[in-house]
């Protein structure tokens, strides 16, 4: 990340432990990010109501509303700011819960500083890609559907308006960039989530099912989101003849 870009990047750190909050803040500042902090979920939501940031580093076990609750509230309000969860509970079930509540990545405490910084960079890079790709091609039309990547909104062939989650929008963006080509599940995971976040590639399949439900006339016989058995998916803007 260039110095100029880093200068404009603000990160919100939501952590109730003052030492950990200070340590995370100092390190992010040393990397060139601007940092704001909040001591609990209510403070974080109040700050986010009036400010924007590129990333939220969110502790799970907060007093009052927990981190999952904060993330769900944000997503419910249509706020798609990426979230990196920090938590003392590192079991897989908890990971899945975090990601299902709308988080982008999940790091168990105690964590390695360099891994933390790497993940912050990875999330921001994915979002940089998404934003620049969306700026270049903001609208995707296929089979009577119209998707606006910047607004995370779409209108389905039936005329029904659709609110896309940021993951759905990102998957669609990756597929659209490679329209007609085979994209493997691993590639999708890598581009949309980063590396070892999800326990299985099955999650990708679930997201594809959701996209089919939104945009296919007959989700059971897809014409745009095609499964390539054993490999991944192929997206066709024209629809399979």
């Amino acid at each position, binding site marked *: 990340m260039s110095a100029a870009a880093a200068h404009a990047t603000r990160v919100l750190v939501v952590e109730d432990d003052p030492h950990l909050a200070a340590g995370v803040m100092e*390190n992010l500042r040393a990397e060139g990010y601007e940092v704001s902090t909040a001591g609990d979920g209510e403070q974080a939501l109040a700050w986010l109501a009036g400010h924007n940031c590129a990333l939220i580093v969110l502790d799970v076990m*907060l*007093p009052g509303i927990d981190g999952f609750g904060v993330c769900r509230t944000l997503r419910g309000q249509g706020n798609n700011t990426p979230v990196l969860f920090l938590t003392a509970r590192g079991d897989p079930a908890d990971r899945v819960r975090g990601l299902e509540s709308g988080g982008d990545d999940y790091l168990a405490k105690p964590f*390695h500083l360099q891994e933390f910084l790497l993940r912050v960079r990875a999330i921001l890079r994915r979002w940089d890609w998404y934003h620049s790709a969306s700026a270049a091609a903001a609208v995707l039309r296929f089979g009577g559907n119209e998707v606006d990547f910047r607004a995370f909104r779409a209108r389905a062939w039936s005329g029904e308006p659709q609110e896309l989650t940021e993951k759905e929008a990102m998957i669609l963006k990756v597929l659209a960039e490679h329209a007609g080509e085979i994209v493997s599940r691993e590639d999708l995971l890598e581009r949309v989530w980063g590396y070892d976040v999800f326990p299985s590639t099955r999650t990708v399949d679930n997201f594809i099912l959701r996209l089919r439900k939104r945009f296919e006339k007959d989700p059971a016989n897809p014409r745009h989101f095609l499964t390539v058995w054993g490999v991944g998916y192929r997206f066709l803007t024209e629809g399979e003849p």
Partner: protein
Amino acid sequence: MRATRVFQLTALALVAVSAVQVGWWILDQHAYTLEKVRAARTAYAEQTRAAQALLDAGTPAQRVQQLLPGIVVSGGRAALSTEREQALTTEERRRDNQYAWEGGFFLLALAVCIAVIAGALRAEAHVLEEQDSFLALVSHQFKTPLASLQLSLETLALRSPTPEAARTLIDRMLADVARMELMVTQILESARLERGRVAFKAEPLELSGAVARVVAQLEERARQEHISISSDIGPGLYVASDPLALDLVVRNVLENALAAVASAGGGSIALTTRALDGEVELSVRDSGVGFRPADSARLFEKFTRLPGRGTGHYGTGLGLFIVRRLMEVARGRVSAHSEGVGRGANFVLTWPAAAPEPRT
């Protein structure tokens, strides 16, 4: 543990099967009695018919009654005697009653067994669940200072900070280590309290002396945090408690008040006592961050963290839990009151009063 559980479940199954068997036995015996009575009635009906046949054939009534003792003849008609009829009904009722009482008693005994075993199983499951959630909470509590410690160390290693920045990091690490050490002590303390393994020797203790000792030890810290402590404690008030427990309770409540006032940026703490009917009360009132009135009971639970306490508070989440348990052991109680967040708090400790006793 596992073997006990298997044993308990087997016993529960055996008792349940026995209960079903007793129930079946009662029904079976009832059916048997009905069957017997029905057979007797059939036999008597045959006798009555035979008697009628004899009468119709011209046998004198007296002779018929001699041959068939259960039959009475009146006006040329044979019938079963009322005594026989009543004896049958009585026997049926007697047997049914006997089975109902005996069977009922066994069923009751078995039901009690089932309740006792099921209760023990439930209690055990509850204990296991509590232990699991306690372990989960404890490990979470440790992971936060550990994460902070690791972060500080890796920052030192990665960034080659200025001497001042390094000093800040080292102070932070020392504080994290101290926090973990305090947590270990308090976790052991609360575990011992939970299992009731405390050597608690209640003796009459003078409250003003005990409070003055704790206040003296915390005064320096209070001064640094811009907190004034005033105590108005009358002499001659004696409470029944263990000396170590009394010290720990007063210290934990006072430290909690210090943290609450420090979070508010300074203020005051006032300690007062009064003698009530057979009890002695110590009130610790602070001008600190307070809490929502609805949270007053939750304060004394393990690892409770309340919103709005602000940063800079390094509680282990066990201090007030230990206070509550120790006050229970001392047959006293503790309560907390606040008008709301930012409006201070008042903690009240109440002990049974004790008569001063000359030490031997």
